[in-house]
């Protein structure tokens, strides 16, 4: 629901919102400029003194006005000629022209009515309404993505346009909400949906009829400081019955020109104060810094519009064809998908199509949108769930477990859970298990026991499909080929070989970055932008299933680099390690923002062994800001498999690498990398106290050993790896 509101409000009104936001940002500069240019009057200065000063220079004085910025303007007549100026309150001298700034007027009119009169005002008000809806729905979406309101600034797993969109939004949303809500209020006042009958001070019942009292002698004007003045209007010349009208922050009243006494006063009412406060919040007039801040935040709107559009376009491109999706309330089979990268949607689409071919009506939805009450005709629920990290909910299943646990009534129709994951990870299909456990705990009957799909295996999926078909009593043949991103030919530039003497042949392979197509340039897809820690997918000849390698370089380095260990009988590693310069392989880029070094001044503790040093070397290579990095590198023998030996020594010399600790397991004094970690406990604890981030890359055994070592050395400091993980300060890339 939130997503639909957000998408359509954004798409339909993007251009208008960009216009008004830019106008608003431009306008925010004026109050600030005015504030800077204005010398604030002495707090002791009274309105009587100021008026007398100005009147000395301009006897035909008609009005003095003080802007919220403190700027004081005066208007007068010299004979029949009107004159005006900005006044220096200290001297009464003229400082500048008081005429309205033409540029400012022009932008103001564009901003509030697009030069289209009331029609334009309605359009702008509609824009403000859309902006408010976008801000509120967007805030809910951010909270859902980061895992709740308390984790508003929690780490994001997105990349590309979606990431930029979310990052900008979570900074700007408060300002945009304030600006759009106040804009709506002001529109409502303009169109008189909100009406204040502002009653001015009552007309004076009796005036003295005298005139000629010097301004400096007028008691009512001497009692008011210039700091609270808004406006002083003079009586018409030659009309002794007329009066001064004095408006201050507190209210308004009349002053007798003969006696200088107050003739009537009315305090500003609550509604007027509310209205003025809203005006102040929207325009920044009287709160220039706030105004500038809001203006700055409004500048995010064009970027939000563009990235929002890109997110929508790429989601449209990537989404498998789910149509014809039966309505949620009509379908017999409800297919719920929890997907992180999108591949599970592909399986869901295949399953839905096969069920439809067998005569079923199927509704496919994300797990995050699960609303059991809606599915009135459901006869079964099928849940396809991937897992994120150590058993967390994937992106499209956020909040599912909580909702299931708090459900008033579980559905009558039974449920089956199918987990997707990678058996090489300890938390294989952990989220799917959690879902099934929660379903059991709530007494939701199971259609069939949980099954799992390892690494997008088409065979596993087909097998599960046949079992499901038996349960449903229909033949179900699922043939799913995972959809890969477009493959590109990568040409090998050079290779360096290591480890042959210790029977672990490894190679550092460096490929050229392929030329980008126009669409890739615009959308940022392909090998346009990548960082060390991202993944290179290689599809070996004779297979459709890709292998993923961590990148040891970023696009700024100008090449694609990976470290590959030749596995006995490995198809991909075999083909890769046989490549000669000039030959090509087919590959694609997969972003992996969870394992990026991230721009920050905090120290980095990098721990890796074997080929796992690849991305870590990439982080060091791209450490141009010279943030402190300590690398723990586990290898077999310095003479055999010391990957990046020369580079590491060079990087240490030029300051990119602070400390290097090498642990060699087959040297004279054998040591594993976790032993080296324990040895440097004080240094590590120190760095972590300074906010250091720990990044581990390598095999599962090594990662487990490192986690244990860290557990032990952090315990005295009252810290655990889990605490660091929760804050995004302990990340692993394990294979």
């Amino acid at each position, binding site marked *: 629901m939130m997503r639909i509101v957000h998408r359509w409000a954004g798409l339909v009104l993007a251009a208008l919102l960009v216009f008004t936001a830019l106008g608003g940002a431009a306008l925010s500069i004026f109050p600030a400029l005015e504030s800077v240019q204005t010398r604030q009057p002495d707090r002791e200065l009274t309105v009587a003194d100021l008026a007398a000063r100005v009147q000395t220079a301009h006897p035909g004085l008609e009005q003095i006005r003080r802007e919220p910025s403190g700027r004081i303007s005066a208007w007068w007549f010299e004979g029949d000629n009107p004159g005006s100026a900005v006044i220096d309150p200290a001297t009464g001298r003229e400082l500048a022209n008081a005429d309205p700034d033409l540029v400012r*007027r022009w932008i103001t009119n564009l901003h509030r009515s697009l030069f289209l009169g009331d029609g334009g005002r309605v359009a702008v008000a509609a824009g403000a309404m859309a902006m408010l809806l976008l801000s509120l729905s967007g805030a809910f979406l951010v909270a859902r993505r980061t895992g709740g309101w308390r984790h508003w600034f929690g780490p994001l797993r997105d990349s590309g346009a979606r990431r930029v969109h979310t990052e900008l939004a979570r900074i700007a949303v408060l300002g945009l909400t304030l600006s759009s809500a106040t804009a709506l209020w002001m529109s409502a006042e303009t169109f008189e949906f909100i009406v204040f009958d502002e009653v001015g001070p009552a*007309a004076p019942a009796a005036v003295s009829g005298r005139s000629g009292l010097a301004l400096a002698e007028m008691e009512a004007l001497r009692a008011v400081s210039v700091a609270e003045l808004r406006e002083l209007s003079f009586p018409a010349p030659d009309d002794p019955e007329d009066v001064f009208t004095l408006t201050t922050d507190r209210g308004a009243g009349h002053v007798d020109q003969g006696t200088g006494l107050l003739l009537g006063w009315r305090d500003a009412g609550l509604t007027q104060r509310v209205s003025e406060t809203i005006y102040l919040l929207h325009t920044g007039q009287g709160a220039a810094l706030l105004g500038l801040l809001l203006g700055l935040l409004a500048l995010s709107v064009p970027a939000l519009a563009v990235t929002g559009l890109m997110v929508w376009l790429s989601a449209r491109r990537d989404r498998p064809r789910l149509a014809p999706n039966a309505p949620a309330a009509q379908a017999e089979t409800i297919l719920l998908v929890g997907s992180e990268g999108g591949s599970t949607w592909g399986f869901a689409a295949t399953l839905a199509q096969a069920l439809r071919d067998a005569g079923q009506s199927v509704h496919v939805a994300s797990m995050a949108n699960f609303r059991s009450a809606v599915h009135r005709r459901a006869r079964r629920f099928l849940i396809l769930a991937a897992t994120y990290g150590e058993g967390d909910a994937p992106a499209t299943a956020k909040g599912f477990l909580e909702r299931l646990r708090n459900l008033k009534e579980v559905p009558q129709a039974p449920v089956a859970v199918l987990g997707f994951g990678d058996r090489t990870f300890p938390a294989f299909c952990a989220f799917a298990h959690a879902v099934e456990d929660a379903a059991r705990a709530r007494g939701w009957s199971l259609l069939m026991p949980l099954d799992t799909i390892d690494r997008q295996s088409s065979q596993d999926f087909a097998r599960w499909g046949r079992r499901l078909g038996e349960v449903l009593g229909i033949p179900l043949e699922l043939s799913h080929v995972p959809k890969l991103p477009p493959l590109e030919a990568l040409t090998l530039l050079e290779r360096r070989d290591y480890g042959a003497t210790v029977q672990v042949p490894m190679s550092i392979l460096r490929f050229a970055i392929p030329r980008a197509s126009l669409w890739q340039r615009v959308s940022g897809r392909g090998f346009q932008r990548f960082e060390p820690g991202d993944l290179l997918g290689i599809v070996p000849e004779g297979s459709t299933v890709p292998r993923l390698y961590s990148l040891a370089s970023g696009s700024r380095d100008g090449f694609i680099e990976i470290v590959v260990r030749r596995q006995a009988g490995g198809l991909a590693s075999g083909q890769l390690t046989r490549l000669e310069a000039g030959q090509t392989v087919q590959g694609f880029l997969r972003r992996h923002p969870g394992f990026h070094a991230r721009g920050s001044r905090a120290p980095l503790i990098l721990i890796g062994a074997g080929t796992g040093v690849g991305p870590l070397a990439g982080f060091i290579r791209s450490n141009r800001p010279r943030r402190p990095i300590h690398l723990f590198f586990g290898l077999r023998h310095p003479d055999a498999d010391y990957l990046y030996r020369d580079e590491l020594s060079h990087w240490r010399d030029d300051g990119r690498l602070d400390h290097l600790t090498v642990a060699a397991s087959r040297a004279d004094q054998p040591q594993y990398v976790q032993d080296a970690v324990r040895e440097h406990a004080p240094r590590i604890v120190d760095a972590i106290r300074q906010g250091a981030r720990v990044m581990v890359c390598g095999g599962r055994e090594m990662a487990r050993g490192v986690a244990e070592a860290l557990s032990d050395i952090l315990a005295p400091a009252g810290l655990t790896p889990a605490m660091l993980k929760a804050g995004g300060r302990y990340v692993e890339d394990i294979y």
Partner: protein
Amino acid sequence: MNKLASCLLLSSAIALSGPVAARPVMLTATLKNYGGDGAYLALYLTDANGDYVRTLWVAGKKSKYHKHLTDWYRAAGSDRTRIDGITGASVGAGRNLEVTVDLADALFDAGYALNLDAAAEDMPESPRDVSVPLTTSGAGKTVAGRRYVASFRYGP
């Protein structure tokens, strides 16, 4: 003229303002190039004592800005809610306002005056930018306004 007489005259003028005793009068105000946004104007009639009689025309429809037409706003009081049908758009700098109103013959040469209050956003209010006696001999003659109005005339 004493107050009672003027009240009687006023009521008879209004009562008799039929086709027989009234005439259509065109009021024309030309604004200066004062360098701001469209001006709000109020045209209204006052009697020999300077007291408000009735509103003839208001240029500018947003009532939240009407308070800036200061003299008219104060004098018209609750009468401001009865300006339906005698309001129009605000008038841009350098532009003309032309309205035709029915004025009873009895209002001429009887001390009544036509008044125009003006105001524009971010500029000073100008009550009685024009204040001109309503006389038979003054009809058709052009007078200058103060801050916003370059010239004003009334006549058939």
